[in-house]
Each structure stands twice: as C-alpha cells, then as structure tokens.
C-alpha cells in the first residue's frame, strides 16, 4: 500500500524540525546546566581571590589573568601575520603555484588537532628554544594555532570588497599598498575583526595546547616567562582530580560566560556590518 507523498512530507517536516529543536535543546541544556550550578559560586571574592589549598577554596584570579594574557599574546602575534598574509595572497599575487602552496599550508594547519600543537609547542618552544613552561611558550603556540583561522576570515573579508573599488583607486594613480591601506582594509575590517574575536573565543577555551606549553602554575605570573594556568586548564584539573566540584562549576560558568560574550559580540558586530552594507 502506497502512502501518499503528502503524508510522508508531514512526517519529514516533523522529524527534521525535531532534529533542529533537539539540537537547540542540547545547546540550551549544556549552557543552562553549567550556569545553574556555577553561577551561585561566582562572587566578587571568587573572581578576585587567589586559590587556596590547590583550588579547594579561594578564588580563581590568577587563572583569569592567565586566560587574558595567553590569548592576548597569541592575538598580538597572529593577527598582523594573518592579515598581511591574506593581503599578500589577494592583492599582490595572481593564482600561481606559490599561492597554492601557501593555501595548502594554511588548510593543513587548520586541521591539526590541538594536542599536536601542544606537542609541538612543548618540543619547540619549551624545550628547544628553552623558553620553559611559560606565557611566552603558550602564547606562541596558540598564535600558530589560530593563524589559519585569521588568514581565512581575513581573506574572505578582503574578497568581499567590490572589485570596482580597487579599479577606481588604481585609476587615480594609487599603488597597491595605498589601495590596500585606504580602501581595502578599512572596508574589510569588520569581517577581519569578527575572525579575530572568534579566534579569541577559541583560545580561551583551549586546554590541550596550553597545558603542555604554559604549564599549570597557580601563582600570579610576574613575567612573560612565568608559567600560568588558564580557567580552562584550572577547570579541567579541578574536575578530573576531583578537587572541588563546586569550584569547578564556578570556573566553568565564568569560562562559558566569557566565551559566549565574545562569540555573541562577534556575531552582533558582523550582522551590524552586513546591515550597514545593504
């Protein structure tokens, strides 16, 4: 007996819609669960106090500092590198074997798991270059990790600048660099900033690459060569070693709030940019 296509259609809508709903619910559940258990733990003392007794009590201030410093260093290094790479790729070259090689390198880099970056950072920065477990090692490792993302999003942003703008600029006697500086970069900026913010979000949540390069010291770092612990690492250690479930939730909640804030800001900025354009 053949079922009428319209009935199958109804079933399909329900199932596909159900899938979408289910996925949304997962998202809401994860965020809700962490916030529900973690928000009560967060207080001014929690955020500004130092951890005591290996984190069983006290606050998480040094980890907040670590969470700020590591991505900051990574962004400072990777952003100019990434933007100028994409500028070079789109404005200074035509499609040649060279650009294909560079793009291949970027694609590969983007797919490498963070544990490998952790291994690399350890053997190269910590050991070979002798930087030890430090903010410097961690920041450099994270920089290499976010580089492909910044290159990709910058390239897309640069590509979205209309070709006619470039033509106008050149026809008025501009050099490539003048065109980049005065027309292309200002117009590609929102897209580039979004990519940077998304990379910040990713660095903040990163654990595997950080543990092996920045270490896990609970002390407030005094120099760039000091080891430090980020919130993600702290959370991982608290949870896995069973040190304090309560503080684990609190750290996780702080972490999630930070990450969500950054990602939502990036999306909001991007949508405002799109709205302004049209």
């Amino acid at each position, binding site marked *: 007996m053949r079922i009428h296509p319209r009935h199958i259609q109804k079933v399909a809508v329900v199932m596909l819609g159900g899938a979408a709903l289910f996925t949304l619910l997962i998202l809401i559940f994860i965020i809700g669960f962490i916030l529900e258990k973690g928000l009560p733990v967060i207080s001014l003392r929690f955020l500004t106090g130092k951890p005591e007794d290996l984190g069983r009590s006290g606050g998480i201030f040094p980890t907040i500092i670590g969470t700020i410093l590591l991505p900051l260093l990574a962004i400072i290094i990777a952003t100019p590198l990434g933007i100028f790479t994409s500028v070079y790729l789109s404005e200074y070259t035509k499609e040649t074997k060279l650009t294909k090689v560079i793009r291949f390198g970027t694609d590969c880099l983007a797919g490498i798991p963070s544990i490998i970056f952790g291994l690399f950072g350890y053997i190269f920065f910590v050991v070979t270059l002798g930087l030890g477990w430090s903010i410097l090692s961690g920041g450099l490792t994270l920089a290499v990790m976010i580089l492909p993302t910044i290159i990709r999003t910058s390239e897309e942003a640069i590509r979205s600048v209309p070709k*006619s*703008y470039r033509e106008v600029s*050149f*026809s*008025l006697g501009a050099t490539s660099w*003048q065109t980049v500086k005065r*027309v292309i970069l200002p117009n590609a900026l929102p897209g580039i900033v979004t990519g940077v913010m998304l990379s910040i979000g990713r660095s903040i949540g990163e654990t595997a690459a950080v543990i092996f390069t920045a270490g896990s010291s609970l002390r407030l770092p005094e120099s760039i060569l000091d080891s430090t612990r980020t919130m993600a690492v702290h959370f991982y250690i608290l949870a896995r070693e069973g040190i304090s479930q309560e503080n684990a939730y609190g750290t996780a909640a702080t972490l999630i709030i930070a990450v969500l804030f950054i990602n939502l800001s990036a999306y909001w900025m991007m949508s405002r940019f799109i709205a302004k354009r049209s």
Partner: protein
Amino acid sequence: MNDKFNIKNLSFYFGKKKCLSNINFDIVANEILGIIGPSGSGKTTFLRALNRMNDLDIMPRVEGRILMDGNDIYATGYDVVSLRKKVGMVFAMPVPLPMSIYENVVYGPRLSGISDKNRLDELVEKSLTSAYIWEEVKDRLKTSGMRLSGGQQQRLCLARALAMEPDVILLDEPCSGLDPISTSKIEDALTILKKDYTIILVTNNTKQAARVADRTAFFLMGGLVEFGDTKKIFTAPDQKETNDYITGRFG
C-alpha cells in the same frame, strides 16, 4: 594641434586570445574622440590600454606601440602610477567610494601627497563645478557619496577624475545607466572640458557620439574599421560596415 596619442600597429593579446588587431591612428590633444562599435569589438579593451588598467587582471601581451606625448607607455620601466595620474578614467557604472563626497574627490590628490586643506578645498570646488554638480552638493560635502542619485554619482566620479588635474579623461560608456537629463549634463560638461583636456569617450549610443565627438573611430571585432571627422562618419562613411552599423543594420 599636436598629437596626444600615437597608436602604431597595436595588437593586444590576453593569453591566447587576440583582442585588438593592428590598430593605427592618432589622437589629437584637446579634442573629444568618440569610439563606437558593437559589444565585443574591443572598444573597452582599447580604452583601458591607454591607462594600462588592463594590467590589473592578467598582464596582456602587447605588440606595436602606444605613444603618449611621444613616449611608449608600454616600455619596460615606464612609470604606470604616474601614467594613471595623467590619464583619468570614468567607468560605466558609477562607483562612489564608501566615503563622503568631499573625501571621494580628494582621494586622488591625497594619494599624490597634497595635504594642504586650502588647496584641497579649492580642488573640490573646482572639480565639482566642472562636473556640473557643485550647486547640488555644495552644502552637503560631508555626506556619503553613496546617497546621491545615479546621475549625480557619475558626475561625482567625473569630478573625482578631474581633481587629479589630468591631461586626458577616458570615459567608458559613462551614461549607460543614466536618465536623459543626467546624460545631457555630462555631455555638456565634456564639451566645455575639452578646452583643457583630451577626452576619449567610448559609447554604445551612436547618437551620443554624433552629438558630442569631434572625431569618431569605429571598432569592429578588435579592429579599427574607420576613423575620421564625426560629420563624415555619420553622413558619408567610406566603409560598408560603418554604414551598416550606423544605420542599425546590426548592433
């Protein structure tokens, strides 16, 4: 009357494709030269060869020479940037840069290093006036150029090119999307401007060439079919193809 451009045996290749073959003629200073012909005849390719805008996509292979003021502009080492400062261009679609009207006009001069505010203000007024748009925008120079109507935007683009104080102005079907009033404003501007500039106008609209150009060149399939005084081309052309095109037998 001296020659501004001498085009000698010019052939143009993009990769394997031959876009222009064996073009030979001279363009005189302070005239309006009209270039007519059907789509794909090479008019735009030729126009863009004069300020080397074709270089932007793929480097073309050039046979023959284009001389401006006696110098081969495709010679190795020729300063392309300064060429484009002397040869300005207005494109088919109006392209205001996403900045204020003022900033649009001073974009070019600023590139050349002019930063004195008085000089820039002077240039803005002079260029916008020559483009027949000063009166309409003089009270809102700081507003965005993208808020103007199509015809106004195109006049802004003309002003932008004029602000560079070039020798030559190239126009590539500048009125193609515009209403008749804007079109006639631009045509009037060009007629006045030829006193100080050499103007080369590519147009799909033969009647526009008849109205405005001193001399006209007819391009067909990459070659120059006929070239001469506009009146002659339009009333008693030598070549059959010219006649067929002008009378609308093909297009």
